[in-house]
């Protein structure tokens, strides 16, 4: 009887519904289904990642698909069926690929300044100077005022970790994936850290009677 069921599974040539995919990718795993899924991941990853890849795209995409497949199979029980299984699987593969690309793009040397701020514990953010190429002296006054206000609040309200994160993410514009790695944390925790920082600044502006939209309009 078991052999009959196995033979029935082997005869399957396509996987359309979520139920069919879940059944095929759950233990005992249907290797034919895994092969089909691998090909679909590769087919999707190429147009998704080509603009980020400066090396052999085909090999990179195959490696990503393989790594993603392991995660997909390990986590198949967590698929809730709110999307098509292929979309869910591709989400995992895309995250796998982009994370690897981001982390490899930035090596340690490019983040030395970030990892080792100036000596004497000087605050990275207060060390920031304003760009000097402002055309209108009157405008410069408003903008300098805005900068001073914001930097004062940042210094008084934020933790050192928050200042470092704000500098890296919002001023240097680094990837949250990379900054999380460098700060030995994860993306979610880092987002929450900066979210809290933004709320602190917003609340302090409110307490000081400063409308951020008004600040923006004056700039």
């Amino acid at each position: 009887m078991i052999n009959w069921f196995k033979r029935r599974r082997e005869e399957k040539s396509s996987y359309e519904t979520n139920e069919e995919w879940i059944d095929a990718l759950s233990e005992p795993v249907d290797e034919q289904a895994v092969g089909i899924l691998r090909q679909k991941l590769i087919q999707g990853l190429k147009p998704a990642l080509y603009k980020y890849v400066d090396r052999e795209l085909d090999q990179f995409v195959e490696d990503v698909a393989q790594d993603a497949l392991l995660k997909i199979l390990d986590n198949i029980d967590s698929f809730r069926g709110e999307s098509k299984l292929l979309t869910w699987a591709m989400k995992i593969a895309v995250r796998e690929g982009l994370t690897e690309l981001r982390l490899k793009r930035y090596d340690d040397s490019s983040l030395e300044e970030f990892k080792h701020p100036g000596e004497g514990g000087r605050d990275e953010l207060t060390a920031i100077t304003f760009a000097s190429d402002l055309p209108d002296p009157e405008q410069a006054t408003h903008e300098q005022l805005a900068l001073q206000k914001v930097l004062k609040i940042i210094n008084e309200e934020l933790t050192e970790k928050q200042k470092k994160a704000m500098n890296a993410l919002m001023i240097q514009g680094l990837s949250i994936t990379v900054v999380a790695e460098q700060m030995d944390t994860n993306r979610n925790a880092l987002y929450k850290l900066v979210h809290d920082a933004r709320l602190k600044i917003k609340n302090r502006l409110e307490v000081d009677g400063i409308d951020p939209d008004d600040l923006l309009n004056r700039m």
Partner: protein
Amino acid sequence: MELTKKILSKLIQAVSKSHPDEIGCDECYDQLDTFAQMKLEGKAPEEAMPLVEDHLKRCRDCREEYEALLAAMKNLSNGT
């Protein structure tokens, strides 16, 4: 390090638009396939899942992943 007018404006804008209900990267990722599926089917996920939409506007890495996911799925449906 120079803080340009553009960066300062973006910082103040980000602060201005901050609200306590924002979701983080994990929650966005958890719902991203559902959000993308709706988009692919011509529905309006921005209305059904506003907190995901909000996070995607704020978080560049999550937005890149969303756009890459859309590109991947569109390629599959085109059969190219």
